């Protein structure tokens, strides 16, 4: 495999096509426009359909229709647009439809700014829509990883009949890096016998639905979903841990801030402090146990969460660390990327050295 230079957004789109995605419904919004633009050119070449919807609301509901009819389908947007998709996402999860949703996050709240941010962590991991549902959320921190996540996302979605979200900050969408295209492992996936493609007169009608008016049925449905989520919790946890045995401080970060934490670790090394990095890759299911174990290591004196938001990831870190070590926050918002120095200083402060 040779290396190619790809812009994040275009790489994501190309990865989707390579993963067999044949339908894309989207609406323009910065900083993710290259995804629909790439799709509009290349999806028809692959025999697929690109459609620009009249809104994000329409786009996610087109995804609902296409997914229900058995298609591999994707949509992408950025923060305010993802907010508008919340009802639709809740419906997709409720009706157990597989699809891939990409959020290239920008600063908020409201119209905010178009610069990169991570303010939608809560929305992604805890469901900005109504009810008890979960998305599998994958957070790449390089473009190579973004491609790999997209490739896997379609299979995971099909396996669980559940939407999968790729959550990346605008930096990942806008930058270019080298990519090596990895072939998909061919997972054997369940047949979509539930899809609506016409009964053909040979079976009972299939119904795509999230309504269970009888609360007992509704409770059963929720219990069923929850069992599925438990399987995901057991099988889909992903993370990267680079933690020396003598780490004084443990950084926790995903996406771009994880890269900056690595730079901060180098700065700290010069100052005689050893840092480690725990990088959750699946934000949901969150790698709760591995993080707890990492934080429990005797040498670790403090856990510092680095995020381009003002205290979102840190909630999951606190839940995982469960009081075994103090947890503090190095947060930025509004499109500003923290500098390695700021990150290092946050660690010094957490260690009481500043």
């Amino acid at each position, binding site marked *: 495999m040779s*290396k190619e*230079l790809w*812009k994040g957004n275009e790489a994501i789109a190309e990865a989707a096509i390579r993963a067999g995605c044949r339908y894309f419904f989207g609406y323009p919004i*910065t*900083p993710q426009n290259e995804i629909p633009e790439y799709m509009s050119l290349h999806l028809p070449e692959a025999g697929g359909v690109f459609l620009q919807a009249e809104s994000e609301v329409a786009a996610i509901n087109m995804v609902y229709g296409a997914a229900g009819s058995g298609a591999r389908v994707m949509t992408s947007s950025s923060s305010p647009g993802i907010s508008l998709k919340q009802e639709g996402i809740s419906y997709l999860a409720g009706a157990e439809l597989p699809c891939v949703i990409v959020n290239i996050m920008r600063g908020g709240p409201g119209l905010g700014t*178009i*610069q990169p941010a991570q303010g939608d962590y809560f929305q992604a991991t805890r469901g900005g829509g109504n009810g008890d549902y979960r998305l599998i959320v994958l957070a790449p921190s390089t473009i190579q990883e973004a491609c790999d996540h997209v490739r896997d996302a379609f299979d995971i979605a099909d396996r669980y009949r559940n939407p999968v979200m790729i959550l990346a900050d605008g*930096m990942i969408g*806008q*930058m*270019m*890096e*080298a990519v090596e295209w990895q072939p998909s492992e061919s997972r054997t996936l369940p047949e979509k016998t539930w899809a609506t493609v016409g009964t053909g007169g040979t079976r009972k009608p299939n119904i795509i639905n999230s309504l269970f008016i009888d609360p007992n049925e509704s409770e059963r449905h929720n219990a069923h979903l929850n069992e599925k989520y438990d399987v995901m919790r057991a099988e889909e946890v992903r993370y990267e841990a680079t933690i020396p045995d003598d780490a004084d401080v443990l950084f926790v970060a995903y996406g*771009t801030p994880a*890269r*900056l934490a*690595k*730079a901060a670790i180098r700065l700290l090394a010069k100052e005689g402090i050893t840092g480690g990095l725990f990088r959750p890759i699946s934000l949901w299911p969150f790698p709760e146990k591995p993080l707890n174990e990492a934080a429990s290591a005797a040498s670790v004196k403090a856990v510092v969460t680095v995020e381009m938001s003002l205290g979102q990831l840190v909630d999951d870190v606190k839940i995982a660390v469960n009081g075994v070590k103090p947890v503090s926050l190095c947060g930025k918002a509004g499109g500003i*990327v923290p*500098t*390695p120095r700021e990150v290092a200083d946050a660690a010094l402060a957490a260690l009481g050295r500043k």
Partner: protein
Amino acid sequence: MTHDILISGFGGQGVMAIGKTLAEGGMKEGYEVSWLPSYGPEMRGGTANCSVVISDDMIISPIVLEPTLLIAMNTPSLVKFGPNVIPEGKVFVNSSIVDMAVERTDVSAYYVPTMEIAQKLGNPRVANMVMLGAVNHVTGLLREETVREMLSQLFTGPKANLVELNLEALRMGAACAANDACMIWSNTHEYHD
């Protein structure tokens, strides 16, 4: 070795393309590379810039805040980013339209009259290639072979003749940078307020 390169200018000056060529070339030479554009409505007629990092180690942040090397294609770029260049850093100035000198003494400045040189070559659109040649001469990042390969992929069919023109621009830029005169600012161009 890590080059943190910032390239800035008016929209339409090929700023993004210089960056992409550097990044792609760097990749082909076996380095780790990243490229990051500025984006947003300030692009409308305003200043555009991009960050390129080329390193023999893992790239941490693609954002270049403190460049080791700045390419200023217009005056506002030099005003805005000049002060952020690291001590001992390098500043490449498009002296065809930049109407001021680099005042800092802790950086090396290179004045490249890209448009005049491009004009000589009969094609104003290769001005950015001239700049790239100058930068490449100083950094030694890309081999001519690598650039030729990239250009051959870019220009095919009827446009194939552009490969040699661009390579010539690259060489002229390099020649310019090889000449110590390029390190002295002279206000030769027309600029009115």
